[in-house]
């Protein structure tokens, strides 16, 4: 408990120092359209989000309600993208080694498709799905799938052949080799990969919402960008930073126990 309090206190001090430096820099620049400071963000930009509710005046309570109402679809898109993308990606990466037919298709999926920049796919998805919500989900799931399937494929490839041969020597059949050797071996590498995915998911969701969504934080960012509202844009940057950090901490907390046996530096 003492350690936790000490850690929290250090964090608070760091945050205060950063905020103070930022505020000093914004005073030096003296132009909120270029470098809005934390005070300006709190007093002007954050309450101005109430306009997304059709409000006539800036209001923090309404702004908070607006953020929550748009955060929910963003979180939902992220969750669905993660669940389906990770499941499909993991299974595909795994079965690429298990079945020859899937291995052949991996030449296209893992060697060609993975090299297409995901941002470049957005206009294509826009034209294919015409801004339909389903298109947003497909894009996010696809983005997660590509990352996870590639990492899974590589993780299985990295399993030492000696271990697999050992299993064969012990008369293990293929499913047993996967269960007893490959799965346990690839977990630390997959944890690392999934940690990346949990960070990248916000970029994928933001990209999908920015171009063609009717709700979500990306939608709000697009509107703020259209009107060059720097204060609102900085606020959203901070919000995404918080989301990313929270995801990272939660992920670490719940996956730590899976790799206690693995050596760490």
């Amino acid at each position: 408990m003492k350690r936790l309090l000490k850690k929290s206190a250090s964090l608070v001090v760091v945050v205060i120092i950063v905020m103070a430096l930022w505020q000093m820099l914004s005073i030096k620049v003296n132009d909120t359209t270029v470098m809005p400071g934390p005070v300006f963000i709190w007093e002007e930009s954050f309450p101005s989000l109430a306009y997304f509710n059709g409000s006539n005046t800036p209001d923090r309570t309404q702004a908070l309600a607006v953020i929550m109402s748009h955060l929910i679809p963003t979180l939902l898109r992220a969750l669905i993208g993660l669940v389906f993308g990770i499941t499909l990606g993991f299974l595909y990466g795994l079965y690429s080694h298990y079945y020859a037919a899937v291995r052949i298709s991996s030449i296209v999926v893992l060697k060609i498709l993975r090299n297409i920049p995901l941002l470049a796919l957005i206009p294509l998805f826009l034209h294919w799905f015409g801004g339909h919500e389903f298109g947003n989900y497909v894009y996010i799931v696809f983005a997660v799938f590509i990352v996870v399937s590639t990492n899974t494929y590589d993780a299985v490839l990295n399993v030492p052949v000696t271990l697999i041969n050992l299993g064969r020597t012990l008369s293990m059949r293929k499913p047993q080799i996967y269960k007893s050797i490959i799965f346990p071996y690839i977990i630390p590498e997959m944890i690392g990969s999934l940690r990346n995915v949990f960070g990248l998911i916000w970029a994928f969701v933001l990209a999908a919402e920015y171009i063609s969504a009717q709700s979500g934080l990306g939608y709000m960012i697009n509107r703020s960008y259209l009107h060059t509202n720097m204060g609102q844009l900085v606020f959203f940057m901070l919000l995404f930073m918080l989301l990313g950090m929270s995801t990272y901490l939660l992920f670490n907390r719940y996956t730590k126990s899976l790799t206690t046996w693995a050596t760490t530096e």
Partner: protein
Amino acid sequence: MGNHRIAFVFFAAFSFLLFHGCSGESDETEVDKLKTVRFGMLPYGDHSYAIIGVKKGWFNEVGINLEYKAIKIEEVVPSLKNKTLDICSTPPGVLIPSYENAPDLRMFVFGDVFQGYAILVKSDSEYKSVADFVNEGLSSEEALQEAAKQLKGKTFTYPSETAIQPFIDLVLNKGGLERADVESLVIDDPLTVNAMRRGQADFQTSGVPSRITLQKEGFRPIISAIDLVKAARPSPESKELSSVFHDGWATSKTYYEEEYATILRLASVNFRITRFMNDNQSEAIALHMPYLTEITGQPFSAEDGKIIYEDLNPFFSFEDQRPWFHDDSEPLYYKHLYGRIIKDFVNQGAFPNNVPTVDDVIFADDIYKELERLSASSEKKIKLLGTKTLSDDDKVTFEKVKHYHSIYNYYDSDRLASDIISDL
């Protein structure tokens, strides 16, 4: 137990995805007697005015349930092409250059004249406006030339979107300049604002949101679309027509043909709204600006509404639009204006294979003239029915006929009048 929980969560997530991704936005059991029309509007003052009709219940009144949403400009063509939307409010500069890839799309009714483009400069800069030169004793044309010449060798920032390119070329042309004579800084519309704020550019032009943002911060226009269009001649050869265009509603040719009655009803509501915007400006602004605030996340006051309605894109009623479709001595006659716009896009290389004619992309003239025909026909029938003794049911219908006639819904007015006459 853990496996069941996981399975349940998986199933729930999958079900939600299936439902959420596929379901429509409205509760159809409440409005299943109305024709649902999926409508997209751009988040600008000249494209979101349909909200006035929604809030007044005018779409419902003509049997339409409008499922509306604000969309981005990049979504217009894909959404109409993929039939995700039935109708979009859009400038022609978005549809026309897409003709080769989306030849099915048409404008079918107009609402306003967009004249919001302007060249902006810093308020304390030495650059003079057209008005300044006129005050010095120059003629309008000379003033325009001198104002445009100021761009030579300077940094000029503008977006890459197709709709604004004709205006840019026209301004440069007036000053005897070409693109190579200026330092072009071609960036996203909102980024042109930052370029001006930071002094990275001397001159700027872009869409209305950026113009309003900059003017509120003290930047001033030196050349506007209004300055240019004053010199326009009634001909597609008149380059000045490149500075303005009509905003309106567009659909696919397929939808237009399959839902012709709906198109006529939609057009009638469009005209009802534009008449209201002129006759009851304050009330229209009070209905419109809160929605514009909501979909942009930026405050739009009543004063902003006035500027939008009076300066940037004045709205025209059914009666006021008559010259656009009948008077070829009027510069804004649709064949002159769209002939010019198509020429500009040809010059930009937008049509490598297939150059559209005006009638390939504009059906607004057909709709306007059809409404005129139906208006005359229903007026004749109203006069006739006024002399007849009607049953109680027919009297009720006759009131509807007159009401529909008064709100430009000439299609239903004429149709119902014909029904009564056939009963007699």
